[in-house]
Every structure is written in structure tokens, then in C-alpha cells.
């Protein structure tokens, strides 16, 4: 698969299974298609599925970028854990704060 890289002395052993240029371009293509799908939801009504669809597309894009472009798929798990800690921490904490704010009656006027 990786043909262009083998000759180079500086190629890192740990990195040899990283994607090739071609794969990078393919991933970018996938990202473009996903973005186009996201964009299309602006014109099409999916009913109650609308938000879940958008969030799913977003999650896939997120996964592709961090997994391949940021090499999390190939790097040490520690990096993934650091990112997931931040991500899950933010989702949980702000989620709870959001729920707590939502629990009390809203402001009077506004």
C-alpha cells in the first residue's frame, strides 16, 4: 500500500501504517460528502429525525478527523483518553448544568 514512503530513511517505524496520501484524499472526500449531506438537510425536512441525523453526521465527521487526520487511530491510547476525558467531561458537566438550569422556572419576561 504505502509505496512512496518506504525508501525514505526518516520514515518512522511507528508511523508506517499511517494512511497514504490517497487515503487522506479519500477521507477528505468522505468529509465533503458528509458536509454536503449536512448542508442538504437545510432544504429537506426530516421531521423528528432531523436533529439526530445532523448530530450523527457531525459525529462521523468528528471521528474521521480525530481518527485519521489527528492519527488517534494509530497513536497511543493515552491521547485518545485525554481527548475523550475532555469531551465527555464537557458533555457531562455542561449537560448537568444545563438540566439544572432547565429544572427551575424560566425567567419572567424576556
Amino acid at each position: 500500500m504505502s509505496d512512496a514512503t518506504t525508501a525514505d530513511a526518516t520514515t518512522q517505524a511507528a508511523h508506517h501504517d499511517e494512511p497514504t496520501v490517497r487515503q487522506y484524499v479519500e477521507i477528505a472526500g468522505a468529509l465533503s460528502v458528509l458536509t454536503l449531506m449536512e448542508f442538504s438537510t437545510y432544504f429537506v425536512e426530516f421531521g423528528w429525525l432531523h436533529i439526530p441525523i445532523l448530530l450523527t453526521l457531525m459525529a462521523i465527521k468528528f471521528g474521521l478527523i480525530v481518527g485519521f487526520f489527528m492519527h488517534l487511530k494509530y497513536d497511543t491510547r493515552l491521547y485518545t483518553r485525554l481527548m475523550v476525558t475532555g469531551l465527555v467531561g464537557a458533555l457531562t458537566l455542561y449537560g448537568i448544568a444545563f438540566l439544572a438550569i432547565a429544572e427551575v422556572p424560566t425567567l419572567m419576561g424576556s
Partner: protein
Amino acid sequence: MRRTPSRSPRRAPRPGRVLRGVGLALLALVLAGCSGAQTMLDPQGPFAEAPDDLFKAVMVVAAVVFVFVQGLIIYTVVRYRRRSDDDELPKQVHGNTRLEIVWTVIPALILAGIAVPTVQQVFALAEEPEGAMTIEVIGHRWWWEYRYPDSGVITANELVIPVDTPIHLEMRAEEAGSADRGVLHSFWVPALAGKQDVFPGRITTLNMQADTTGRFLGQCAEYCGLSHANMRNRAEVLEQDEFDQWVAEQQAPSDVAAAFAELTPEQLEAQEVPEGVDEQVARGHYVFQSNCVACHGQISDTAVASADDFVPRTGPNLTHLLSREEFAGAIFDLYFREDPDDPNSAFTDEVDVELLTSWVRNAPSLKAMRPGDGIGMNSFESLPQDELDAVIAYLLTME
């Protein structure tokens, strides 16, 4: 911005008072603080008692744990202290799983025991009690306003409630008549209930009920800026019939106000003196109209029919000023005390006119305020002395 001496000599503790205070405080210590002007240890109604019972139960547990742990520490350091000639190494113990489980599980069980009634109470206290009387509480910088939707009464600083009746407070903060201006306050009468913060633009609620009549103290408990310390409140608990009488009195316009209500607009324009009204008092009315109404509202505003008629205001309603015992955010006594040295002794019938006068003349010198920003009362130093005296005379009719 220093307070002028006119306040401090009255309130500053004299040596005798300090000694007396020390004596009282020692007594309070002996009684574990079971009495006191603002204590949270002496609840006077179910909404304060339930948390208090829980607290005291937890304090017993905490005391046991405290004695155990501190005893253990003292025993350990005494028993295992190193003698000077002792070079022998102790046995190198790294841990003991069984012990660790014990002191993980036992505290967890104790806490679980506390958790159950706590959660039950949280939900119970949040419910609006049945048959509750609703009172609106409005936090201003820096005084409390109370509005009684059922009777149309508006008053300030002293929350008057009937005994044995559940009270449901609907609270918010306001400023200069605007419901979404203002800052956070916290309404608190420890004897009757815990505190609840008050917000601009949002309504929070608090339930309370008094089992005994009496006068209970509180003060704003959420930092609200410059004069936060000078925002005090009292709860005056009356027998039901006394309360009904109080409401009736509050609803009735004062005699002077009634007399002025008889005048035609032309007569008012001409600043005429109504029949049966002292001339100086009448003069005071007109001075009040041109200087005070903008913030304190019309004197007759109090007797209104429904909550919709409430006019937002910057200063407290003064129609029945003399029915209150304190003023200016309840930091000053309107009436002299029976014992001038005891700030908690009963009130006499004699109004402290001198203090009231100096307040009207230059309020910002007695209480830190920001009248320039529309928060607090202006100084009326420029008002001629005779007009000032007239206003005071007028105010002294507002029984």
C-alpha cells in the same frame, strides 16, 4: 463616605454594653445558643424545625465521629511517640485491607442514613403548603418590600404575618421600579425558614410558618453590594385577630391623606390647607409631593384593590410609616427602646424624631448608598430647614 457621628454615638457600643454583650454571649454559649435575636438553633415553625432536627441529629453523629477521630489521633501520638534513645525501627506495615474496607463502608453507611431523610425533606419543603397565604417579597438595594396580594397592603422591612398560618413567599428583586433590574439578595428569617435567594427577572419561592407570636430577626444573606450589611428584615408574628386588625389599619388611608383626598385638583394646585389639618403638616404634604413622591409613591397608594394596581417604586411606601418600628432597611429604630443600651429591648411609643430628621436631611451620610445611580435615597441638605421640619411633621401623622 464615612458615616457621620450622628449615627455612631447612638449605636456604638459603650464599655458597659460590651461587658453586657460578653455576659450575654457567655450565657448563649452555655445554652448552646438556644436563644438569640437571629439564631438558627431556635426554630419557631415547621419549615425551620424539620431541617433543624436533621441538623442536630447529624451534629450528634458528627460529635461522636469527632471524639472518636481526635481521640484516636491523641492516643496514637501519645502511645507511639518516639523515645529519645529508641533507634529500633518499627514494624514496616504497608496496610490492612480489612481495616480499609471498614473505614470505607462505615462512613458510607452513616452518610446513606443521612441521605434518605435529606432528600425527602428537600422535596417536602419545596411543595407549596395547602391553604398558604401568598405574600410577595421584593428585594431592593438595600431594603425589603412586602406586598400582600389578598389585601393590597404594601409595607417594608417588617414582614407581618399571622401565627399558625403557612406563608408562601413569592420573591424577586427589583430596582427603580423595573422588574428586570437589580441584583441578587437572599431573604432570611432563621427562626421561620432557611434562606432563599432572590433574583431580578425571576420568581423564587419560600415557605414559612410561625408557631409562636413574636418578633424574629433576619437580614439579607446574599452579598448585594455597597450597603449589603444595612439590609435587614424582621418578621412580626401576630395572633390572627391582631393580624386582621393590622391589615384593616394598613388598608385605611391615613387621616391626613383622607383629608387631602377631599381637595379638588385646583385646591391642590393652590396648595390649600384641608380642614382639620395642621398648617405645618399640610405644608409638609406639599413639600412631600414635590420632593418625595417620585420614589416613595403617593401616600394613598397603599389601599389598592388588587395586585395589578401595584406601582413599582424606588423607595418604600410611607403611608403607615409609624406602624413600623424601624426604618432605612431596618437599621435604625424609629421608636426609642425601653432600655437604650439593649438593642433588643421593647420599643416605647416615642418616635426618635431627631434621627428621622437627620435621615431625611442627608440619608447617604447615615447609610452607604448610591443615589447618583438611582440606588438609595438622595440627600436633601439643600432643602430649607422649615420645609424639612414640615415634612417630618407630615411623616409623623402617618400612623
